[in-house]
């Protein structure tokens, strides 16, 4: 499904090589090193001169989803991407990013970080999907800036987890900005560490973070999810984990930090196992134990 869509990608990178950039009217798409050279103002968003990655600057309304693909194809490749996505005022954008190892045993490293800037009144629906091999190492660190009245609907899914996975996401919300973030990881034979921080910086900002984690065979999963309210604002955390294997574990740490007496922030967290009642019900519908488990897990990960 992913490979079929590659030819439509606005930015396609395989290992270190940029294979294709498909420009769209009203949008500037460059490599990040190219943007660093061409636009001095981008330098405030990059911590240092980027080695690789994409720069996408949306200046006009685009009525179809933009799409990026980053692949690991060869063995022992280490990617270090710095990405920058900027959406100008009042635009309403759909965006999809796919990062994937094409084979299971590539021993690749994918380090990716970046900033996503939503200017005043803009909105972004962003789907970010990862598929990795069992021996890869992945470090992902993204920071979102939601200016006044902007709106983010973000879904991050790791559907096939690497050997080691670290995901850090920071959401900075200014006045009346709103954010719905869903972080989903299906982990098997992996060590996964998730950190996210929703910072409600200005009045009437509102955000909701939902986390769904599944610890399959031989997995250690930890999530530290935080909301920090610095102004009159609203936020909610919903963290749920499902442990499938005796040798696996999940640790969930929700944290609320309130610095304004008018702020309202809440959380809920739970970790459970697959319900025997649900499993037996599906088996009595003709599904094998494995098929029934997969169906329940997929349902759990559907947000």
């Amino acid at each position: 499904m992913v490979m079929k869509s590659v030819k439509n990608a606005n930015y396609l990178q395989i290992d270190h090589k940029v294979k294709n950039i498909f420009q769209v009217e009203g949008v500037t798409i460059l490599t990040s090193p190219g943007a660093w050279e061409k636009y001095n103002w981008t330098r405030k968003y990059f911590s240092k001169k980027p080695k690789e990655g994409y720069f996408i600057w949306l200046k006009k309304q685009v009525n179809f989803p933009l799409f990026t693909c980053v692949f690991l194809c060869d063995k022992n490749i280490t990617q270090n991407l710095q990405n920058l996505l900027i959406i100008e005022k009042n635009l309403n954008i759909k965006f999809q990013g796919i990062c994937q190892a094409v084979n299971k045993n590539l021993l690749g490293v994918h380090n990716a970080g970046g900033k996503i800037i939503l200017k005043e009144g803009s909105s972004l629906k962003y789907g970010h999907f990862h598929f990795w091999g069992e021996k890869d190492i992945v470090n992902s660190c993204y920071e979102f800036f939601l200016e006044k009245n902007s709106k983010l609907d973000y879904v991050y899914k790791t559907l096939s987890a690497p050997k080691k996975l670290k995901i850090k996401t920071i959401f900075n919300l200014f006045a009346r900005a709103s954010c719905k973030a869903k972080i989903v990881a299906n982990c098997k034979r992996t060590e996964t560490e998730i950190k996210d921080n929703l910072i409600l910086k200005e009045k009437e900002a509102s955000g909701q973070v939902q986390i769904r984690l599944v610890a399959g065979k031989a997995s250690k999963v930890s999530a530290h999810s935080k909301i920090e309210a610095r102004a009159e604002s609203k936020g909610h955390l919903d963290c749920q984990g499902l442990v499938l294997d005796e040798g696996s574990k999940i640790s969930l740490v929700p944290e609320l930090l309130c610095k304004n007496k008018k702020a309202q922030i809440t959380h809920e967290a739970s970790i459970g196992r697959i319900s025997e009642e649900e499993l037996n019900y599906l088996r009595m519908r003709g599904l094998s134990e494995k098929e029934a488990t997969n169906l329940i897990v997929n349902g759990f990960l559907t947000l």
Partner: protein
Amino acid sequence: MKKDLLRIENLKVQANGKEILKRINLQIKKREVQALLGPNGSGKTVLGQIILGNPKYKVTQGKIFFEGKEITKLAPEKRVKLGMTLAFQSAPAIKGVKLIQLLEKISQFSAKELVKGKIPDGRNLLERDVNLDFSGGEKKISELVQVLALNPKLVIFDEIDSGLDLKRLEKVAKIIKKEFIDKKTSVLLITHSGAILNFLNPKITNVMVLGKIICREKDYKKVLRVIKKYGYEKCKKCKLLTN
């Protein structure tokens, strides 16, 4: 003997160390409709679940046969493949799984075609999570759609008539008659009130009390009359139970 679709011999069943079913014997022939009546907690639902092989319950003695093949230790999914199924009295919700997804996994028929021609009320449920926030009536429809999707040889309906008003009850009974009984599917109707029996006319009515089948009667009206008049209390005093 050969005509028995389901045969249960001297079955004893335990759950949490407690004996729930005591020496159950039951035979259902091909194309036959039978009823199983009994008070709350008599073991009717457990019998339905154990026939389908719910691993929650443990058979300590006795055997179950389906089409002459012993299935006492067979996994539930393999029993379903042989052609048996159960409409649950109280089905759990499967969050995040739409009914249409489940139907597509378990059935060879198109889910939309299935409900369109046969159970139109099921159409509104297809895009909803299985049993999540379903009303009592919706749960019954969902169960009917699912058992129909499996194209079974034997269906056990566990309290399909409970909590339904007369109009809905008649509707459900009509679906059971048209889609199962008229198509020669064997049916076991587990019911506490017996309300549905007037629509479906079972050939044999069994009465279960305290984990035993104490009565097997051809005239279901006679059984209903006795229960209506005396309640199941009279059955509990039946000498067959003490024997």
